[in-house]
């Protein structure tokens, strides 16, 4: 008896986190169920989810654990990692993350829990920092315009390849890549080129360029550290009508002539060494910069300056209609979520150090490298290149083995070749390290080297001709925040302008903005996770490998797949990888001709974009009036394309938020005709513990760990998009030169073997904290909350699309089109008015124009759901006032939303509603009010007058006048 009681008490404690993660408590859940007319959660789920896809057994995962137990367990894993002094380079460098940035950005939910800045009025803080990022990249590369941002340097190079193929005058199909580019970049280019019908030719850039080369890629400094004058090569490429892409190191650009000044058309690279931890490969923000004439073809998101309705400057995403996924199957890129949080950190690093600080850091790194090289020469070694910035290749010949062993003993990681070693220094490398390296490599040399003495006889190793002469980062943003006090306040000021999950519910449909628990975030900044180089020897990353293997296993169990690859670092990247796996599978069976990809018309735009990039031909399948796949049309198209059918891409539950009853039938039909089913896992939050895509007929899915598994959205990235596959597809999962993979593996899709490994502890922790039971409850409450919201709002707005028993899945769509027809009030008006109530709008006009898609997730407590309903109902009343003829749409608070403090404090107030109605439409706002920093932004103005770098300070003065 006594024992039983003890066991029960312990179980209760170990499940403590479940009720921290799930918003509505037991009483609230009961209340919500009662409103819906169900006796229990189980009964609701039985009614909502088709019986034939339900799992019979609970998830085979360990039970829930307490927060302290999970941290303790993960700490043990972390302790088996070894943080060595890593001098491998290859695009990944040690960096000092300024503590003020680590604590106030990376560890601050105001920054990391925000969504992509699609609602710009409530995202001005991070938009400003992203504009700083673009300005920094433009300045350092010497090019006109930059984006913010891409996934990693390797995929940025692949984006540049696709971009150049479209923009180049030379209509050939060869992308010429210097053999001195980073090897992982070359591997990704090979993966991406073949399905796009392009050929990567790797060679010596000094040789003649093939006539049918549409562009050339150069690394600057090259992967071996050598600094070359590329002006002549760029000129020759241009003479053949080819474009020149330069993968450039940002720190080196503080001292080297920028690519834009020697004629490059595109510069790409990573901003990792600007204060972003290594994290065993990511996440880091890559950049892409080009000339003004090509601005409309830039992949990824670009921040631009516009004005709000009062004429004040305001930031927002520019040229949004150019976002490639909107172009669907005509897209040349599928980039969507990028790396906002990391771009924000890199930009903040530049604000913190300023141009002089960065120049000093660059100078210090270069001098130490030059002194290291000089000392090694005096010890008798040959240094491969005379001109370098921070990386040298040392000819070690017969000594290579001894040097490798000495380095191992010293705890130093070098880049090891057959008879040479590479050494890359970074801002964390001290003079003591240089002396240690000499001692380590001196062996029987009798020479006594002292740092000062060697320094005295060391010339710089940058040729005068390539020394940078142009200014950079002259804008006040990079010259005003050099004391910690100023930096701290700048970051606070920006964060205060934004709405993130630390302020209020973000009910974005299909985005699953759930709790990102603090405990899950804590391990991310442990040095044992954050300071590991992606190409560190395997025995130094034991903890990582253990955690990764467990996470792969847990995700496979949850999805019902045989194997999981964590390499793709965004959902779109996962889609692309999954489709390549399908193609490889068909090819392995002698059916490489299968290239038709069926996609329902309601699919997210990245689906057709990914399919096009994977070399498939997209055939669109109709949807019926209820938003379900039109079975008759599907059958017709499957039969028509039977011989060439490669895959069907389908989202489940559907993009309309419904559990389609026909899903197993659909899967069977595709398989019968030799195709594979790709199930988009964006909506997995409605399935965990309840049904498994791998069991009810799907062959591949990507999972969005940044949705279902708690990685925060970071204001627009990082994301992680692993893929799960059936056993027959497992041999084809992505490989990488730095991991064990089967020979049949497709090439790498990310620069690092495990993609954004540094944030995987978040998802691992979430699953450990929740256990099988908690994960299932989370799904059930997510479905309960969505149905509760639909129920509460139904009498005010029509709810579109329901499944069996009148239930939705984990999100619901409310229809505003009838109100627009009657009153002129748009979805935009409602979204902007919600800001006055302190809310981020639900997803607008996807998948149906003129509607709002609401996903509450399991994490929002009932009180917050009610607060949101109260706002929506109050807005409905404001619309009714228009219907009743009390005022016109143009006179209503909806048309003027969002209201800034300035609007409301104006001396003249001649509106048809009161100031109080504008600011405090519901009473609770009087004690907790978010003030939108700008009024509604004029999108068209910004796209007509495109400015994508920090405007001069006078522009603000002009606008104010």
């Amino acid at each position, binding site marked *: 008896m006594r024992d039983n009681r003890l066991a029960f008490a312990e179980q209760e404690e170990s499940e403590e986190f479940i009720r921290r993660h799930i918003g509505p408590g037991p009483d609230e859940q009961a209340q919500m169920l009662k409103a819906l007319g169900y006796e229990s959660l189980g009964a609701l789920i039985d009614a909502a989810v088709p019986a034939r896809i339900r799992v019979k057994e609970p998830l085979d995962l360990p039970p829930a654990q307490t927060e302290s137990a999970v941290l303790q367990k993960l700490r043990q894993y972390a302790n088996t990692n070894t943080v060595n002094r890593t001098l491998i380079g290859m695009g990944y460098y040690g960096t000092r993350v300024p503590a003020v940035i680590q604590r106030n950005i990376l560890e601050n939910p105001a920054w990391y829990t925000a969504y992509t800045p699609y609602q710009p009025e409530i995202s001005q803080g991070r938009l400003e920092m992203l504009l700083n990022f673009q300005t920094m990249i433009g300045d350092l590369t010497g090019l006109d315009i930059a984006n913010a941002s891409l996934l990693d340097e390797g995929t940025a190079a692949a984006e540049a390849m696709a971009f150049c193929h479209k923009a180049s005058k030379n209509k050939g199909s060869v992308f010429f890549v210097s053999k001195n580019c980073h090897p992982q970049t070359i591997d990704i280019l090979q993966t991406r080129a073949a399905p796009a019908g392009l050929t990567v030719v790797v060679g010596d850039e000094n040789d003649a360029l093939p006539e049918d080369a549409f562009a050339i890629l150069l690394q600057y400094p090259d992967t071996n550290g050598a600094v070359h004058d590329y002006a002549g090569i760029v000129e020759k490429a241009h003479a053949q009508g080819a474009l020149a892409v330069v993968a450039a190191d940002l720190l080196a650009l503080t001292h080297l002539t920028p690519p834009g000044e020697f004629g490059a058309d595109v510069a790409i690279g990573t901003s990792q060494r600007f204060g972003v931890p290594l994290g065993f490969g990511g996440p880091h923000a890559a950049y892409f910069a080009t000339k003004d004439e090509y601005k409309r073809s830039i992949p990824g998101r670009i921040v631009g300056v516009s004005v709000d309705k009062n004429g004040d400057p305001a930031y927002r995403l520019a040229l949004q*209609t150019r976002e490639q996924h909107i172009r669907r199957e005509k897209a040349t890129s599928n980039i969507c979520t990028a790396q906002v949080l990391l771009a924000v950190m890199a930009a903040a690093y530049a604000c913190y150090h300023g141009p002089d600080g960065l120049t000093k850091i660059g100078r210090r790194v270069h001098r130490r490298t030059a002194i290291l090289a000089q000392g090694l020469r005096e010890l008798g070694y040959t240094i491969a290149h005379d001109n370098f910035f921070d990386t040298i290749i040392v000819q070690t010949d017969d000594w290579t083995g001894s040097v490798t062993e000495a380095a191992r003993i010293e705890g130093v990681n070098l880049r090891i070749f057959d008879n040479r070693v590479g050494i890359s220094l970074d801002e964390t490398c001290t003079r003591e390290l240089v002396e240690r390296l000499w001692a380590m490599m001196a062996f029987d040399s009798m020479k006594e080297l002292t740092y000062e003495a060697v320094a005295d006889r060391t010339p710089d190793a940058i040729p005068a001709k390539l020394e940078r002469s142009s200014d950079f980062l002259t804008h006040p943003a990079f010259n005003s925040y050099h004391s910690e006090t100023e930096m701290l306040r700048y970051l606070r000021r920006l964060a205060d302008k934004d709405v993130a999950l630390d302020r209020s519910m973000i009910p974005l449909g299909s985005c699953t903005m759930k709790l990102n628990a603090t405990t899950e975030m804590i391990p991310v900044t442990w040095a044992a996770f954050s300071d590991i180089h992606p190409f560190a020897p395997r025995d130094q990353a034991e903890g990582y490998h253990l955690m990764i293997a467990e996470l792969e296993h847990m995700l496979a169990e949850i999805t019902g797949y045989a194997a999981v690859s964590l390499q793709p670092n965004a959902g779109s990247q996962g889609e692309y990888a999954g489709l390549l796996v399908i193609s490889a599978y068909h090819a392995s069976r002698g059916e490489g001709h299968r290239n038709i990809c069926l996609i329902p018309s309601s699919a997210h735009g990245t689906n057709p974009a990914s399919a096009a990039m994977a070399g498939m031909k997209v055939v669109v399948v109709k949807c019926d009036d209820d938003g379900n796949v039109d079975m008759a049309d599907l059958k017709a198209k499957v039969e028509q394309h039977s011989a060439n059918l490669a895959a069907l891409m389908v989202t489940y539950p559907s993009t309309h938020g419904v559990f389609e009853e026909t899903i197993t039938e659909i899967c069977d039909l595709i398989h019968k005709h030799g195709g594979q089913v790709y199930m988009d896992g964006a909506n997995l939050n409605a399935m965990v513990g309840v049904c498994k895509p791998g069991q009810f007929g799907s062959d591949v899915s990507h999972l969005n760990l940044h949705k279902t598994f708690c990685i925060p959205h970071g204001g627009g990235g990082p994301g992680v998009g692993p893929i799960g596959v059936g056993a027959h597809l497992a041999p084809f999962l992505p490989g990488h030169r730095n991991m064990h993979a089967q020979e049949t593996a497709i090439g790498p899709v990310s620069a690092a073997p495990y993609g954004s490994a540094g944030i995987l502890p978040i998802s691992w922790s979430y699953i450990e904290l929740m256990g099988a039971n908690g994960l299932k409850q989370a799904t059930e409450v997510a479905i309960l909350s969505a149905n509760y919201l639909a129920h509460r709002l139904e009498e005010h707005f029509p709810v579109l699309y329901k499944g069996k028993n009148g239930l939705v899945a984990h999100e619901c769509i409310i229809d505003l089109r009838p109100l627009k027809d009657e009153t002129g009030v748009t979805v935009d008006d409602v979204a902007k008015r919600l800001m006055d109530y302190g809310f981020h709008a639900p997803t607008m006009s996807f998948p149906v124009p003129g509607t709002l898609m609401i996903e509450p997730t399991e994490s929002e407590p009932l009180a917050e759901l009610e607060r949101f309903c109260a706002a929506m109902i109050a807005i409905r009343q404001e619309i009714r006032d228009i219907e009743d003829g009390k005022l016109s749409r143009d006179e209503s608070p909806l048309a003027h939303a969002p209201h800034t403090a300035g609007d409301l404090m104006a001396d003249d107030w001649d509106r048809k509603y009161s100031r109080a109605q504008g600011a405090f439409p519901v009473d609770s706002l009087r004690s907790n009010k978010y003030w939108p920093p700008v009024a509604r932004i004029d999108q068209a103005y910004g*796209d007509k007058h495109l400015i994508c770098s920090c405007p001069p300070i006078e522009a603000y003065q002009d606008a104010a006048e």
Partner: protein
Amino acid sequence: MSERRYTEDHEWIDLDGEIGTVGITDFAQEQLGEVVFVEVPDVGKVVAQGDETAVVESVKAASELYAPVTGEVVEANTALADTPDLVNSDPEGDAWFYKIKLSDKDEFDALMDADAYKAHTEA
């Protein structure tokens, strides 16, 4: 006296002798909303029927114009680049995109006339 025909992609083409003038229809500009950017083809560009020849971007969408007929671009309305709003205010007049010298008049004859286009937009 010129003759006007329409495409399913909401372009119009006026034929005067062997030169066709191409633009987008009033219906198209209304669907697009406020136009913010226009790109017209280079003079001398040879295009086949259905090729992408020009770009129009609005606050809502980025779209291509497809050549309604095969031929060579002989003139482009470069002024549109500075005044994209003309596409909204005078889509079927001053906001023409380019002029094309037709290779095959049969292609033109096969396009929709005003009545057929009207029926197409109402379908």
